[in-house]
């Protein structure tokens, strides 16, 4: 009995070096996220370096080859589709447009939202009431449906996608920036800036905006993930990106009819998209706690 108690004692007070190593690794585990995202960005920048095969190379003899199978063209890490196109190469090449659309749409949404939020928060009164009603009206509109309508009327195009997707995110930026601005505006350094003769414009751009910036950056990271999912949804429904351009959402859509015979065509691009969004979320959460601790 006494032996058991002593063992327990040593186990809780002095954890073994293996325990400590595990704890240390778990603490740094989030570092996987920026690494993963870096790889995705590199895919987008230079797909030719990472894709083993040409994503437009049709190979009728090796159609619907399951993942990890080796053929005379090389090893198909993620299998091939019904035309014998290497799925891994297609996913690498799809990263560019997927990221481009998501980042561009988020940036545009952020710009609109930040301007609305700053004006609304700084001026209050009727400016605030007008802009907030506008934001609410935008939120109330089922923009996903409007996007489908617009894209099916005008024909699918990447440009319209980049114009329509920001409407999903700017109200979020607007509301968060407004709330932060309301807080910052009451600081005495804003009063001090006014007392030194700053114009309203200088106060907003030089003193309010930089203090709201950390919050905006965090939100941009997480919203990029959301926009990516929305784009995938639109492409899946056939009103987003059209072939021969490709995004991960489009790959998922293409694989759907073959789900029973070739699961990898849907699952693998889906997992890739999911992991990317997950990494963006974890990273933004990480930034948020750091920004909170610093501010």
């Amino acid at each position, binding site marked *: 009995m006494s032996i058991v108690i002593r063992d327990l004692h040593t186990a809780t007070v002095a954890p073994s070096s293996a325990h400590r190593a595990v704890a240390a690794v778990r603490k740094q585990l989030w570092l996987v996220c920026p690494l993963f995202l870096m790889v995705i960005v590199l895919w987008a920048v230079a797909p030719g370096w990472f894709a083993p095969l040409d994503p437009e190379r049709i190979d009728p003899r090796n159609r619907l080859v399951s993942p990890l199978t080796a053929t005379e063209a090389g090893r198909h890490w993620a299998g091939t589709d019904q035309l014998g196109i290497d799925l891994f190469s297609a996913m690498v090449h799809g990263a560019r447009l997927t990221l481009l659309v998501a980042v561009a749409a988020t940036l545009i949404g952020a710009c609109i939202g930040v301007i609305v939020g700053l004006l609304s928060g700084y*001026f*209050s*009164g009727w400016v605030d009431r007008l802009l907030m009603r506008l934001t609410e009206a935008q939120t109330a509109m089922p923009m996903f449906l409007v996007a489908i309508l617009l894209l099916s009327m005008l024909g699918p195009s990447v440009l319209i996608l980049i114009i329509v997707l920001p409407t999903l995110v700017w109200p979020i930026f607007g509301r968060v920036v407004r709330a932060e601005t309301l807080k910052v505006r009451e*600081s*005495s*350094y804003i*009063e*001090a*800036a*006014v*007392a*030194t*003769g*700053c*114009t*309203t414009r*200088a106060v907003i751009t*030089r*003193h309010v905006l*930089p*203090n709201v*910036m950390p919050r905006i950056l965090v939100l941009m990271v997480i919203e990029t993930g959301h926009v990516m999912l929305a784009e995938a949804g639109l492409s899946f429904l056939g009103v987003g990106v059209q072939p021969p351009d490709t995004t991960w959402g489009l790959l998922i859509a293409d694989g759907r009819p073959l789900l029973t015979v070739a699961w990898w065509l849907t699952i693998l691009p889906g997992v890739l998209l999911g992991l990317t969004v997950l990494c963006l979320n974890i990273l933004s959460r990480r930034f948020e706690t750091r920004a909170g601790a610093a*501010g």
Partner: protein
Amino acid sequence: MSTTPLLQIRDLSVAFRTPRSVVNAVDGLTYELDRGEAIGIVGESGSGKTVAALAILRLFGLFDHVELSGEVLFEGRNLLALPAAQLRRIRGREIGMVFQDPQTSLNPVMSVGDQVAESIVYHTNATEKAARSRVIELFERVGIPDPVRRYDDRPHSFSGGMRQRVMVAIAVACQPKLLIADEPTTALDVTVQAQILKLLDELRREMGMALVMITHDFGVVASTCDKVLVMYAGRAMETCSVAHLFERANHPYTEGLLRLVPRFGQQEHHRLTPIEGQPPELTVAHPGCVFAERCPHVEERCFTVRPDRVELGPQHHSTCHLAAERAQRITVAGRPWEAVG
């Protein structure tokens, strides 16, 4: 040198309108300040001293429901009627301001040097480079060690006292004619307080600035100011030169406050006598004297008739019905509490 005072405040009233009531934060304030002169505005919390100072530069939010009346004449121009663009040219250029809390009065994400340079660039059209060297000179003058290296540091790496020195540098960057200091030492510890007060006093003399010092500390007033304005519930009770404050203080409220200043040489068991009661509600109208309810010498007319500002001598005014007779009695009999101590 012209004979008109630098700053003339005439019958200044500031009221904040809320949906349910009107708060008369400042009511009928009048005082004058000459070039290079220093006035201390003394009063308890909520007596309107800060609001009176903010009103000089109209430093109220765009959508605060503030009603200003009266006149703030700065070199003959009424600042209350000045268009916003012209007022901006005065803020920071002709009138500098030091705020109460140096912890929150500096932008946390901007280097301290840039915050001082901002005002110089804006008001003098100096180049960034010229502004930078001017800022380094200023930092040296206000006593920030190693100014060249400290220029690019952010406020969080400065102590409270050092931040207040930065605030002073911002306020005097354009050599203003008037410096408003709103309780500049309240948030600092005692040794630093003395340093900051000394610095303000030196700079004032060097640059020939006039100073409005807001405080609730008679000690600060005595060491840095030429005259004192005592405020209570938004109204001026008494103005007096600092040199004559202790022997000639006329208003019962000033007298009550002075009784509360502990002094060396007092008897061991001497008790400080507090003023009984609470400050009045500012949302209701006071037809008489605002101090009437707490005044030990109150008469019936004090509740119904608002006292006038009585001139008792050069730079000495008291807003009390009894001012004249009290002045007489005080010159004959001396201060009532001095017999006790």
